């Protein structure tokens, strides 16, 4: 065993003391200090924690940090390296069950603790998943492919393209459905781009994650996975969908269309909401109940189209009052080919930006307007400002969500940089990213504290 493994996460001061007493990480140890004598196991330390403290797991299971200056003597009485592992057993195969492929990208859908960083790190295989969520075997035969292990903030075009291609391969192999495990932070970006890169899929493509990591008893991971696998194996909706908790209660999940979904809370389980439309369906591990009827149905063929052309010279600008034109200018000067603006209200920015926007148009840069209100349409013909901006070449992108417009523009620019063609492609819906209408129940943010909502919450599970 090499040296760093012996002192996982520890720095100079503690390593010196450990070496002095011939102790190491995972030692069974008896430590004499000026506060008393303690027995336990030496644990690794989080790398970001300060030096000078030795972490010991006492026999009671509690951890404490001991100031090494207080240590008088240490005695290693044993050594046993811990292996944090989900009990693995072979995932059972049943010929009568549909085959589902789970593509892993990372995130907390399947995870374990890492002691070097004190963090939750992703880990999964069919065996591990079966060990942790044996109910999956009742739903489908599961194959897993680990594409990469990144936190979702590190997802980008390279990962999107790899994922899209993997989907194509698996569908052509004849799977009944695809499940993609993904960190939740940027799940809606990936759902958006996959909706464009993967077209005409004959089978469901279900994205799933978890808001409470699977290392905890209250995790939503198992239920999310079961719902996702059910949707992929038995569902009839052959689209890119996000499958996450409907209410915060563990009652049912919602299937959100990949181009209309957004993470709306930094931590709740029911953070994903369909914006400006209705979710496509409700699902639990036993049944799927459609809410919308206009979805693409499952087919028997394998005629999937994978189109991964992408140009990453796109940017998104979140407008704020008193924004200076140099923000836009710097994008122009840095060779960006497309800009998505998240404007105020119906799609507005201030006058000082006009010259910069004019310059962008002259340089052939495609500029689209979305709304930072998220709900509602960019309707730039209503006010003078909007009309002025359209005059300057800013194109309203309907009710396309800012993040979706951002990934779509990258995808469109991967196909053409001809401004007229770009506008044509951007405004022609591929996967429901622009809708003609917002149904009357497409915007529902109820306000707590009002009598009718208080009444509703008393009667129903949240």
């Amino acid at each position, binding site marked *: 065993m090499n040296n760093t493994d012996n002192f996982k996460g520890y720095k100079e001061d503690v390593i010196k003391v450990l070496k002095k007493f011939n102790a190491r990480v995972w030692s069974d140890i008896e430590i004499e200090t000026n*506060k*008393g004598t*303690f027995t336990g*196991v030496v*644990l690794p330390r*989080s790398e970001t*924690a*300060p030096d000078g*403290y030795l*972490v010991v*797991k006492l*026999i*009671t*299971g*509690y*951890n*404490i*940090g*001991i*100031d090494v200056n*207080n240590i008088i003597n240490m005695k290693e009485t044993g050594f046993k390296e*811990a*292996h*944090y*592992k*989900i*009990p693995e057993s072979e995932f059972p195969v049943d010929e009568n069950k549909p085959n589902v492929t789970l593509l892993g990208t990372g995130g907390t859908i399947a995870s*374990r*603790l890492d*002691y070097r960083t*004190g963090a939750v790190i992703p880990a999964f295989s069919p065996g591990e998943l079966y060990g942790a969520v044996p109910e999956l075997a009742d739903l489908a035969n599961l194959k897993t492919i680990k594409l990469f292990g990144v936190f979702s903030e590190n997802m980008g075009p390279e990962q999107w393209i790899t994922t899209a291609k993997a989907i194509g391969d698996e569908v052509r192999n004849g799977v009944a459905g695809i499940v993609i495990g993904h960190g939740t932070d940027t799940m809606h970006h990936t759902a958006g781009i996959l909706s464009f890169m993967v077209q005409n899929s004959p089978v469901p493509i279900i994205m799933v994650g978890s*808001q*409470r*990591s*699977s*290392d*905890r*008893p*209250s*995790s939503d991971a*198992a*239920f999310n996975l079961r719902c996702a696998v059910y949707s992929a194996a038995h569902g009839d909706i052959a689209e890119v969908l996000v499958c996450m908790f409907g*209410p*915060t*209660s*563990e*009652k049912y999940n919602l299937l959100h269309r990949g181009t209309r979904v957004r993470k709306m*809370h*930094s*931590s*709740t*389980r029911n953070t994903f909401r369909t914006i400006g439309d209705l979710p496509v369906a409700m699902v639990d591990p036993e049944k799927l109940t459609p809410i919308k009827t206009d979805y693409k149905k499952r087919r028997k063929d394998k005629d999937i189209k994978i189109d991964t052309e992408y140009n990453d010279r796109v940017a998104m600008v979140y407008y704020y009052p008193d924004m200076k034109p140099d923000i836009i200018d710097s994008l122009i000067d840095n060779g960006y080919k497309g800009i998505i603006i998240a404007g105020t209200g119906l799609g507005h920015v201030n006058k000082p930006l006009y010259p910069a926007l004019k310059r962008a148009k002259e340089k052939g840069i495609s500029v689209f307007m979305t709304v930072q209100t998220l709900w509602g349409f960019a309707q730039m013909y209503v006010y003078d400002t909007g009309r002025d901006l359209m005059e300057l070449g800013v194109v309203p992108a309907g009710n396309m969500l800012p993040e979706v417009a951002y990934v779509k523009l990258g995808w469109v620019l991967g196909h053409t940089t001809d401004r007229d063609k770009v506008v044509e492609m951007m405004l022609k819906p591929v996967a429901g990213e622009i809708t003609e209408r917002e149904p009357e129940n497409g915007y529902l943010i109820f306000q*707590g*504290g009002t009598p009718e909502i*208080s009444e509703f*919450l*008393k009667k*129903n*599970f*949240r």
Partner: protein
Amino acid sequence: MSKNIDFNDLKFYQKIGFMSGLEVHQQLKTEKKLFCHCPIEYLHNEPDARILRHMRPTLSEMGTYDGTALMEFKTKKNVIYNLFTKVNCTYEMDDTPPFLINTEALEIAVEICLLFNCAVVDEIHVARKQYLDGSIPTGFQRTLIIGLQGWMPYKDRKIRIRQISLEEDSCREISDIGHTINFKGDRLGIPLVEIVTEPDMKTPIEVMEVADLIGTILRKSGRVRSGIGATRKDVNVGVPEGTRIEIKGVSKLKYIPALTHYEALRQTKLLELKKELQIRGINKDTFKSMIRNLTPAMKKNKTNSLYFKNALKEKLEVKAILLKGLGGLLNKELQPNFTFSDEISGRIRVIACLDNLPNIIHTDMPSEKHLVPDAELDEIKKLFGFETPDVIVFTWGENADVETALNEVKLRIIDAMDGVPSETRQAFPDGHTDFERILPGPERMYPDTDHPAQQISKELLDKIKKNIKNTYNELHELYLKKLKVPEKLIKPFVLSSREPLIRKLLNSKTEPSLINEILFNTFTYLKRCRLNPDNIQDTELELLFESIRTGEINTSEVKQILKDALQSNIKLSEILNKLESPVEFKQVKPEMDKILKESKEKKLSLLYKLLREKYPDKRLPIKEINEYLNSKAGK
């Protein structure tokens, strides 16, 4: 059931090897909760919202599943949390990560560690302690060790404190019926300390006294909550070759002696059972059992047994297990009126969610208890190939629950071969206990990744140390040794909100019994008269004691004076100051003789009352009066 038992019989408890320790949970008096910023209040109105969750076991950092965790997962409960807008936020819903630890709570916990002479840890690490019963929405309790290896004085020795940890409180259970358990969220997240002693108590009475003493030390600190549920005690009991059993939720101190006694008894009985199994040659390898589904046959042949008939009516399954060679053993009494069969039934109630009792019947029961007609019983015995001394255990319910139940019967028998299975048991006021859950081990602990480790600086420790004054132990020592207060008065004196006054009075040589008479007995009397003596200022009371000392008033007058003062709303000092000009004894003597002659009752207080009526604002010659009375009594 605990009549005629001497719970302090040291010889007896030494003989059976009685060992007992305590875990005292005490809520801290903080403004906000431990890991979020919710205010603290118990609510009794309808909840504002409800959420539904399920719990799954996870791995500990050492890579093993915890036994309790797995058991609780078997029960597959719907866990419902009833929440209140006023005191619950998205943290308690487990929908928001914890905020940094409440420093007020941390400082109180450190203070308590110092009161119990613990080594305060250099760096605290938040741990997650798994609870799959649903009592905490995260599925674990966030807990951190603050102090280790402390002690407290008791009698002439030290009781060792193993550890003191700071934890968030769990939810209050509202109901637990079948597969649905309901919790209330108001208590959730309140900071509490858990004080764990070593098993240093030698008799059940000692356990009670130490529990009382811990509570007293905490109360004296003034940093803890009081009221129902603010202090909760678990008692650990073991005997040699038995095991550590945790008795949960002991609500009153006075229940402790019987509970600990009968738990020790239960363990000795289970050890006898173990021996009996050995004698019968039943061990893990030879033990045989057989499960049969009786439902189809009973449907076909129309059962005449009440329990089975009702079960079939409700479309439930009836199944049974034959336990080879175990005849008679299920009737073994473990505690008064509590048999091994009852013990198994308790475990099934919890694990298989079969909570309508009886949930099992067996062939060793008298027929008026199992209510299976003889002919039917014979049929079933034949079906199983029953031979004496076998026993058949029946249960009924939903199929999955019945399967779990029969498996638990088997597991409990296997456990019996080892003696006493580790479990936590629920306390009942009569001293008996019932299965609550399998005792969780250290495997259920794992680090909380949501919190960085936090160093406890020397500066903070010194600051807290400096602020600790007048601890119970210090004052106890002072009252006992220096102020010579009788032991039984020390606790009420030291805990009294008027402790500074009491100490002042004792220092000026006031008799402890007089202080007790006025500040406790008389005050209780006044409160019973719906008066509020707590409103009287210490300085006023000091004057009262001074007047007694100088002989301005007689002790027997105090009750009336205080009553007058409180009723008329006149300050005590005004009444006492009025008694300026003394009345001479020769003036009083004829009056006294008259009163003594007229009144058959020779009560001193009555005499003073009548004299006071005559001389409402004079100082009475108390000394001479007393001497005169004594001389009269001497005749």
